[in-house]
């Protein structure tokens, strides 16, 4: 989102910028003091002042130095900007806005706070607008509006993508031309046969046979072309969509985690599957047919003109009428059936509600009430269904009749012409056949605009991902070397969003082979700290050194290969245990696999499964317990003999026995390796060489277990709180 919206001249002229003063942030807001919608109101933040312009008048102006806080408070479906004035210490709401502007003002308020604190950092807002600021259309989850800006650009990119398929495109296009030519040729032979053979009075048997042979050849050719057309279109569509899928998948893999985490997982899956399928469908259904139909219609019109220009014009005159009728009809049908599907959804959800809540319904004795409620919903659905079917049955034949009106007129007028001899019988028949060719594809053509827009939208969404640049990439001359395991944080600052500080000036040194426990309340930045060590994100400020070399200088792939990670959610792929372990090291020998599994206390239970290391795990596979999955994950992490081991809540939510087994495994594992471990259960960390406590975005305490207990600080409180919980549980 743009945080410095360009101000119109009439607003700029309301105030004078001082020397060295510049506008840092600005945004329109849409609700005025009276609660009415307004469209000439702006919140403006310069490096010195906050200025609020409401309905073209400055209603509030204050030096930043005179403010102590600036905050965007969200209300119910709206928001207000609240500032605190230093002299009186009063909170004042200065601007009010709908949800359209709330995210912008939240960022701007953070930006204001940063400026008040004297920071030079500027705030960015990576959220996308929901509707296009220019045309007001809804954006399909993309940055630019497919309708306003992206259309040509996107189409050009698509053309470039298609350029790999030049030959196939040419093939399909030529086949279309050929197919239209064959279809156009049929009626010409028919006309000749009728006029020259049947009606001429000197027709003979060989002529009839010749005609039948010609028609047979045309039919066979037309079947072959249709087959080839479908085959090649399908090949082309499948090829292009496969290309897109691969490109998308590859791009998503290399993109920074933040891009992926900003989106719902389903959304990216949709882009890979549905959007690429939309392109394929368009290629198969529409692209081939467009050429074919256009050539066919043009060809038909040309031949018709040579037979009878007058009749041709008459046929064409009816085309727009029939076209608009069919568009109108489609709209009505769409509305009606949309309603039906909506009521169908209501029906389903009512049903689902009752069935999944049947225990509640029964235990409250509400069966009768629920039955009646469902009956009412079901009744409405049935009524709409019935009405729609009646409508369809009544209107569709009528529409076909109206759309065929053109043909009736042509037949009637052509009949008169045939009677007075200016048109032969064969020509009349030929003419009518061509006229049907004009009217036939009308229904299909009304769908075309929708298909094109759908394809463009899908393309836009696809290129939205493909054009995104990964934020972390290899340095120009990346270093590949074995790491030893010294880690140094030097003034490290980081936030997932520029305005939200998660870690602030972290200074810390970890020696090779040390085990460090990271402790702190949830949401304080423990996982963030290890995300930085894993180099999933770049630090905003300061340096993170591994063996004295900046982490950014290492070749990413090499670096990642040398760290072992066990996360709280143990993710195993739908594959065998063997392949899951080999994910870390594809060329691991069986012996290495077994050694790693033994280290992780996993070998025993793996042996007991019927298929041993070949046991299939995952959704449809063998059911492993949480502890077993965890141990496989640990085995996977050590297979590579990593120098740097990261354990993020690796033992949480396990029963005592598996926790003990995993503890043991971890003890063996961490020996001699630099280890960073986050644990919720503090007992897990009692073997750590040092503990760091993160609080308030900083390292609050640091030392051994005993040292920290003596300090009686945060760690002490955390330990006592856990003991307290334990006694409460035991008492209960």
């Amino acid at each position, binding site marked *: 989102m743009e945080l410095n919206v360009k101000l119109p001249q009439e607003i700029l002229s309301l105030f004078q910028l001082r020397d060295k003063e510049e506008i840092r942030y600005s945004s329109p807001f849409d*609700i005025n003091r009276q*609660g*009415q*919608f*307004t469209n000439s109101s702006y919140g403006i933040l310069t490096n010195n002042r906050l200025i609020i312009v409401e309905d073209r008048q400055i209603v509030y102006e204050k030096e930043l130095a005179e403010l102590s806080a600036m905050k965007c408070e969200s*209300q*119910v*479906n*709206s928001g*207000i900007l*609240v500032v605190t*004035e230093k002299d*009186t210490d*009063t*909170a*004042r*709401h200065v601007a*009010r806005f*709908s*949800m*359209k502007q709330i995210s912008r003002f939240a960022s701007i308020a953070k930006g204001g706070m940063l400026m008040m604190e004297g920071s030079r950092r500027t705030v960015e807002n990576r959220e996308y607008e*929901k*509707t296009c600021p220019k045309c*007001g*259309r*809804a954006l399909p989850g993309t940055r630019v509006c497919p309708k306003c800006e992206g259309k040509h650009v996107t189409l050009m990119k698509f053309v470039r993508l298609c350029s790999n398929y030049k030959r196939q495109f040419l093939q399909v296009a030529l086949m279309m031309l050929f197919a239209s030519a064959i279809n156009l040729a049929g009626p010409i032979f028919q006309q000749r046969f009728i006029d020259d053979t049947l009606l001429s009075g000197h027709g003979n048997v060989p002529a009839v046979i010749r005609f039948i042979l010609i028609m047979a050849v045309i039919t066979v050719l037309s079947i072959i072309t249709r087959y080839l057309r479908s085959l090649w279109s399908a090949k082309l569509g499948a090829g292009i969509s496969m290309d897109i899928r691969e490109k998308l998948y590859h791009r998503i893999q290399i993109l920074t985690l933040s891009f992926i985490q900003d989106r719902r997982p389903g959304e990216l899956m949709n882009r890979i599957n549905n959007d690429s399928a939309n392109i394929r469908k368009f290629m198969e259904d529409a692209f081939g047919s467009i050429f074919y139909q256009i050539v066919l219609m043009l060809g038909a019109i040309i031949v018709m003109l040579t037979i009878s220009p007058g009749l041709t014009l008459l046929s064409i005159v009816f085309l727009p009428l029939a076209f608009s009728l069919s568009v109108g009809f489609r709209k009505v049908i769409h*509305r009606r059936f*949309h*309603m039906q599907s909506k009521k169908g959804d209501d029906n389903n959800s009512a049903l689902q509600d009752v069935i999944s809540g049947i225990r509640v319904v029964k235990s409250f004795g509400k069966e009768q009430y629920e039955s009646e409620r469902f009956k009412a919903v079901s009744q409405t659905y049935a009524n709409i269904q019935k009405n729609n079917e009646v409508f369809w049955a009544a209107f569709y034949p009528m529409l076909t009749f109206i759309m065929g009106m053109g043909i009736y007129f042509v037949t009637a007028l052509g009949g008169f012409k045939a009677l007075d001899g200016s048109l032969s019988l064969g020509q009349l028949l030929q003419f009518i056949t061509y006229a049907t060719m004009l009217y036939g594809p009308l229904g299909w053509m009304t769908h075309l605009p*929708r298909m094109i*827009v*759908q394809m463009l*939208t899908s393309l836009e969404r696809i290129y939205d991902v493909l054009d995104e640049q990964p934020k972390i990439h290899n340095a120009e001359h990346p270093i590949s070397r074995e790491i030893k395991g010294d880690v140094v944080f030097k003034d490290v600052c980081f936030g997932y969003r520029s305005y939200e500080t998660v870690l602030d000036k972290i200074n810390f040194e970890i020696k090779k082979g040390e085990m460090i426990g990271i402790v702190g309340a949830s949401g304080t930045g423990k996982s963030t700290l290890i995300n930085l060590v894993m180099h999933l994100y770049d630090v905003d400020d300061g340096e993170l050194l591994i063996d004295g070399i900046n982490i950014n200088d290492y070749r990413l792939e090499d670096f990642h290969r040398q760290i072992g990670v066990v996360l709280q959610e143990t993710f195993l792929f739908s594959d065998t245990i063997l392949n899951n372990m080999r994910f870390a090291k594809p060329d691991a020998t069986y012996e290495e696999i077994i050694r790693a599994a033994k280290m992780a206390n996993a070998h025993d239970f793996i042996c007991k499964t019927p298929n041993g290391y070949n046991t299939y795990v995952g959704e449809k596979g063998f059911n492993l317990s949480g502890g077993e999955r965890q141990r496989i994950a640990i085995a996977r992490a050590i297979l590579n003999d990593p120098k740097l081991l990261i354990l993020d809540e690796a033992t949480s939510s396990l029963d005592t026995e598996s926790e003990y087994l995993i503890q043991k495994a971890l003890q063996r594992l961490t020996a001699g390796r630099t280890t960073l471990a986050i644990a919720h259960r503090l007992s897990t960390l009692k073997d750590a060489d040092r503990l760091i406590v993160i609080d308030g975005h900083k390292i609050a305490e640091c030392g051994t277990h005993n040292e920290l*207990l003596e300090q009686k600080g945060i760690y002490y*409180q955390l*330990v*006592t*709180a856990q*003991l*307290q919980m334990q*006694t409460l549980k035991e008492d209960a």
Partner: protein
Amino acid sequence: MEQDLYAEEFDLEQMEAETEAMLALNYLDRNNSTFRRTPGGFVSLDTEDKHYARVQVFRTFPFTGKNLYISIREADEKAREIGIIHDLDQDVDEETRQMLTEQMELRYFTPIIKKVKNVKEEYGFAYFDVVTDHGPCRFAIHMSGNAVVHLTDTRLLITDLDENRFEIPDTRKLSNKELKKIGLFL
């Protein structure tokens, strides 16, 4: 060491007292509380034992009882409840009613659609052009999903793409022409 840790940490009594306080239904009225406007456009509250420089005013039944059981809460993020006004029309004086209503109007922004000028449907979205009690407005909604919720048979709540909400309190009061325009959502 563990033993003495149990003893000195956590005042269980205090925890229980806090839990009890959360259960109590504490009514505020003209006799035990004084609300005042603040210069910043909010309201302050003085109860018998405490002064709050700013309080928040929440509706507990925003759809079915706009002036009933108004929850008065502290202004910080925790927004702990100070008390409840049982009936805003009865329990406080006119001026207080006025200022608390203003606060609620600041908090709840659900424009009421007075007139439907146009509804255009395009590729899975519907574009509304309406006149509301807060002035004219255009917004877009998803055709699929729960953008239009029926609070009752004739009362609609519409949520747009930005998550603004609009209300049609009684569809029977719309003209036939307007009804036809929103027919798809009835």
